[in-house]
């Protein structure tokens, strides 16, 4: 017999692989938490409105910091209270996106209060889902801006006292003072009858987004049984009998029938437009071109800080720029100016680049043993490892079947005139083995550009580059 199944919406992942752990299909939330209920309502509304592909969920700081584990849509995770700012950027950069800011009471009503009000006042195209459980959850149950008078928390063990800590903030009422918001409603997810009403409000808020009409705000009264030390039954009674009294459930505003979709001018991200804005010369750097048969090459360069790891990556990136390829350079280093470990990812590609992080390098350049130990296992099966010969015997580190080249980089550089040029020697080897498919000219021009302000170093580094390619020709098959 045919059947209908009420179950997890398609806009949520079946398995939460970003979370992992012993039960990757269960959330990280405590038993009886309101977040999961609200997540399901939002995802179900996304399904019903068929907006999953256009949706961007913004995870806050707080217990829902990992909302991106669960929602199968575009995801952003932002600093504490900054969802309205990032959401503004997102919704303006991608006019057809449906932006949702999911925020708790500490995030939205405390540190994020200013941005919340500003974004609402501008009438940004964002659906804000504000989860009010009257307490800071993730940090262990401290007093929140929405904690009620007399309500006990870790930081007001005698109950919130108005003389000491003021009064609970009523966010829906506060925002209702503004002109721009299109939809404002306060709902509760205490028990099933409330949850069913909340579902309608969630869907309306997202309908406003789907139609591009502007700012929508839904406040949920939700349970935090862990921090408020309640059973499920107690949490339901607490919300229905006490929280609702302080924060009455109500539709404050629904102008969705009266207002028109917001139409913004089209953004122009063309190079010409940007060059004009920043008053840049048009001819000094050429646009990258799409070259269909040029597969992406990922390079990881790693060593101690001060070994020229990052600058080597930059020279390589410049060489690829010169050949009008798509390039990204992504450094990663500790807070130290010298010493510490440092690495960079360089991607050279015939098409536009997504993430700039190289997880599985085609080429690994390791300046020291720790770097080799850390990254050798990640190198692709047909990849190449180039390492400094001072690392010593590496048979146990280099995985079987992967080509590795031990380069006397410091010696080559010293013989050419400066031991500081070991990174350029590595670059020469990379050029000679041909994996980057970049020309001699491109590397030489990149060196000229890099050292344009120190002309003496141009010829020195070009000599090191040349010596290293010669060394490779005679020492590497």
């Amino acid at each position, binding site marked *: 017999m*045919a059947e209908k199944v009420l179950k997890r919406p398609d806009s949520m992942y079946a398995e939460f692989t970003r979370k992992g752990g012993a039960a990757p299909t269960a959330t990280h939330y405590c038993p009886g938490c309101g977040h999961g209920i609200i997540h399901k309502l939002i995802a179900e509304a996304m399904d019903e409105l068929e907006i999953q592909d256009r949706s961007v969920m913004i995870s806050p700081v707080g217990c829902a910091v990992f909302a991106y584990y669960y929602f199968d849509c575009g995801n952003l995770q932002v600093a504490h209270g900054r969802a309205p700012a990032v959401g503004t950027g997102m919704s303006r950069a991608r006019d057809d996106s449906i932006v949702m800011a999911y925020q708790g009471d500490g995030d939205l009503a405390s540190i994020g209060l200013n941005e919340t009000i500003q974004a609402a006042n501008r009438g940004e195209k964002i659906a804000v889902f504000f989860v009010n459980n009257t307490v800071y959850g993730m940090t262990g149950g401290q007093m929140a801006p929405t904690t009620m008078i007399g309500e006990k928390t870790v930081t007001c063990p005698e109950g919130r006292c108005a003389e000491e800590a003021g009064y609970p903030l009523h966010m829906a009422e506060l925002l209702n003072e503004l002109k721009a918001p299109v939809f404002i409603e306060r709902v509760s997810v205490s028990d099933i009858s409330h949850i069913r009403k909340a579902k309608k409000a969630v869907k309306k808020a997202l309908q406003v987004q789907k139609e591009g009409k502007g700012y929508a705000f839904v406040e949920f009264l939700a349970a935090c049984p862990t921090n408020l030390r309640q059973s499920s039954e107690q949490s339901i009674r607490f919300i229905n009998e006490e929280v609702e009294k302080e924060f009455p459930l109500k539709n404050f505003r629904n102008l969705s029938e009266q207002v028109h979709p917001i139409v913004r001018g089209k953004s122009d991200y063309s190079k010409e437009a940007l060059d004009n804005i920043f008053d840049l010369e048009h001819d000094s750097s050429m646009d990258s071109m799409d070259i269909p048969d040029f597969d992406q090459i990922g390079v990881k360069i790693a060593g101690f800080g001060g070994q020229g790891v990052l600058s080597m990556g930059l020279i390589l990136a410049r060489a690829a720029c010169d050949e009008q390829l798509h390039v990204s350079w992504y450094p990663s280093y500790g807070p130290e100016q010298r010493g510490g470990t440092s690495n960079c990812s360089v991607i050279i590609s015939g098409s536009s680049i997504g993430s700039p992080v190289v997880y599985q390098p085609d080429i690994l350049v390791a300046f020291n043993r720790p770097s080799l130990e850390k990254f050798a296992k990640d190198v692709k099966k047909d990849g190449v490892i180039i390492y400094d010969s001072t690392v010593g015997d590496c048979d146990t580190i280099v995985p079987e079947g992967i080509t590795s080249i031990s380069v006397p980089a410091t010696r080559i550089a010293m013989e050419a005139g400066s031991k500081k040029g070991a990174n350029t020697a590595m670059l020469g080897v990379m050029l000679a083995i041909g994996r980057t498919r970049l020309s001699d000219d491109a590397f030489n021009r990149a060196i000229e550009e890099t050292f344009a302000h120190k002309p003496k170093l141009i010829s020195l580094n070009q000599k090191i580059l040349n010596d290293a390619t010669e060394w490779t020709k005679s020492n590497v098959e």
Partner: protein
Amino acid sequence: MLAKSDIKEPYPVIHIIECKGCGRCVLDCPKSVLELSNDLNERGYHYIVYSGAGCTGCGNCYYTCPEPSALEVHLPIREK
């Protein structure tokens, strides 16, 4: 014509591993056909069990459950 016994009833499907035993579905079930087990699941929670009969398919348990995948409610579509 179908006899009443031929009509399949709605029923919940409980995924034990995801259940954290908060008991919200027990509170919101209008027919009181859900209860907490005496046993623990492998994560150490008492989990929900269905008595095996009486589910009306209202979906309350699904919506009140904070876990996305712990509960499903199957509703037979009756052919006319």
